[in-house]
């Protein structure tokens, strides 16, 4: 079962008609310096990698699902079959300029260890995940009294690959705890538009449908 196929497409991450690329992919790609080396962990069908390579970025990928890998290799991408939870330890320190974890954090068994590995392998990490603090989620749990299911995350609680949901607030706390520096943080609303920067955290946590973070080693979060 392809992880990406189950969690996607999110409306907020549906391809934009104008560019054919998902807004979160465009945002991630914009965070990456041209000419750098990138590892995309949980690269799915390789859409983000293709976007990065088209911008002259040297991209590699890891993907859990065999179908995903085979699609990627068939597109000529350098992707290996592997598991973020178990295989990141095999990568040497500082091997990449950026390590990307796009819409995959919530499906890992040990998000904290994975996050630490991302910043060991890469000088910077870019992490995006669905925000469980999004108002629609809160409303379903509060009013409906059941685990939230949205058009973005349609799986039921018993067949979801997403085992470690978190809110933007939770993620920021984790970054603080493991001394990860948050260089850039963007919350995208349901339509893939950035939530305005000048609004406070709690607004992001309420109205951000997903969070996209550019991280580096050391220091405290904001």
């Amino acid at each position, binding site marked *: 079962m392809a992880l990406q196929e189950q969690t996607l497409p999110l409306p907020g991450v549906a391809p934009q008609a104008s560019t054919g690329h998902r807004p979160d992919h465009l945002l991630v790609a914009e965070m990456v310096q041209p000419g750098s*080396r990138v590892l995309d962990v949980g690269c799915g069908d390789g859409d983000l990698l293709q976007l990065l390579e088209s911008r002259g970025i*040297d991209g*590699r990928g890891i993907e859990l699902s*065999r179908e995903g*890998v*085979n699609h*990627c*290799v*068939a*597109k*000529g*991408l*350098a*992707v*290996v*079959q*592997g598991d973020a939870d178990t*295989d990141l330890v*095999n*990568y*040497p320190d500082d*091997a990449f300029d950026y390590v990307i974890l796009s819409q995959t954090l919530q499906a890992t068994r040990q998000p904290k260890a994975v996050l630490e590995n991302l910043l060991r392998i890469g000088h910077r990490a870019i992490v995006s995940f669905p925000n469980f603090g999004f108002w629609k989620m809160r409303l379903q749990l509060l009013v409906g009294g059941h685990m939230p299911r949205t058009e973005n995350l349609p799986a039921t609680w018993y067949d979801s690959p997403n085992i470690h949901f978190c809110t933007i607030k939770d993620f920021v706390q984790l970054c603080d705890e493991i001394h990860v520096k948050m260089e850039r943080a963007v919350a995208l609303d349901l339509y893939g538009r950035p939530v305005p920067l000048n609004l406070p955290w709690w607004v992001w946590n309420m109205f951000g449908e997903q969070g996209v973070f550019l991280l580096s080693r050391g220091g405290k979060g904001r």
Partner: protein
Amino acid sequence: MTKVQSIKGTSIQSEDRAHEADHPSSPVAKFGMDQPLKLDCGIDLASFQIAYQTYGELNAERSNAILVCHALTGDQHVNNVHPVTGKSGWWETMVGPGRPLDTSRYFIICSNVLGGCMGSTGPASLNPATGKVWGLDFPIITIPDMVRAQAMLIDRLGIETLFAVVGGSMGGMQAVQWAAAYPERVFSTLAIACSTRHSAQNIAFHELGRQAVMADPDWRSGGYVDQGTHPHRGLAVARMAAHITYLSDAALHRKFGRRMQDRELPTFSFDADFQVESYLRYQGSSFVERFDANSYLYLTRAMDYFDIAADHDGVLAEAFRDVKTRFCVVSFTSDWLFPTSEARALVHALNASSARVSFAEIETDRGHDAFLLDVPEFFDISRAFLQSAGKARGLGDVGVA
């Protein structure tokens, strides 16, 4: 007394094959006393020859050459009628016009390995010093030796950089060794169902095969050619044992189950009652018609000695330090001879040395042999990998200039 049916002797006398060993139907590159091959065992082998086949055309830039490396019992006849067996080429599903190794785009070269018996110098060839067949006087060779000999052939063909080196099983070992030994001469490597070191289990199976050959009285301590015999029973047993390792439990069950061969009831004898027995006996006896027993000993030994990491202080990643070669590693789920874990070890090492690597595990129940069979997903990946490498190499869509 209980009826016994042992393996049948060979129907074709081995003369055709013996002739191929020195005078192959393929083109031959001869290397004289002035161009010795420096073997890992310390011996300089001279003179020697390498027999090869080519398919397609070399382009004007000489940039579209692919070297195909064959497996243990394969040979250079990738996509033409075999001169001894009369059967079609062993990889015609993979090589040809419109195939993943597209002969209308690429110039395909396949040479018989050093130590083989289809025209490249090996134990079945005549020793120029004595005028007799080499036999056990032939020096022990290794996978790196085979690759060195191939590099001399590629030099002879006037090719500086190979667009790709492709191989499965022992051929995959050679493909990986090429990238480790001559990284600047290999643009891309497609390594299939192989490993960077032969496992203890695989060495054990090879030892079983070698002992079966040596236990045959007709082996005559390796001197069977001079004494007019051939250890076909021992070699057939070796092949039968090896053949089981190329399949899988599921594949054997699907193909044969417990079905009987041309009979309804067991004969209460050691006759080949079961289809699987009959099949294995056929595999054994047809193999001996085309293969030299001593060659089998030497080639299995070469695989046993293979361990790339050992040549780099035990650190596999060191073998690929700063390689620019693009890699694609493929394994098959049901291959227990070269399981996915072996492929993964190679991939980890390549990752650690920052090489550009793709790795795909193909789901199939057909075992190690899957790389020789019609497995569409495997073909798709091979084709796509070579196409994207071709784009990076600047090969046009048509390929041939």
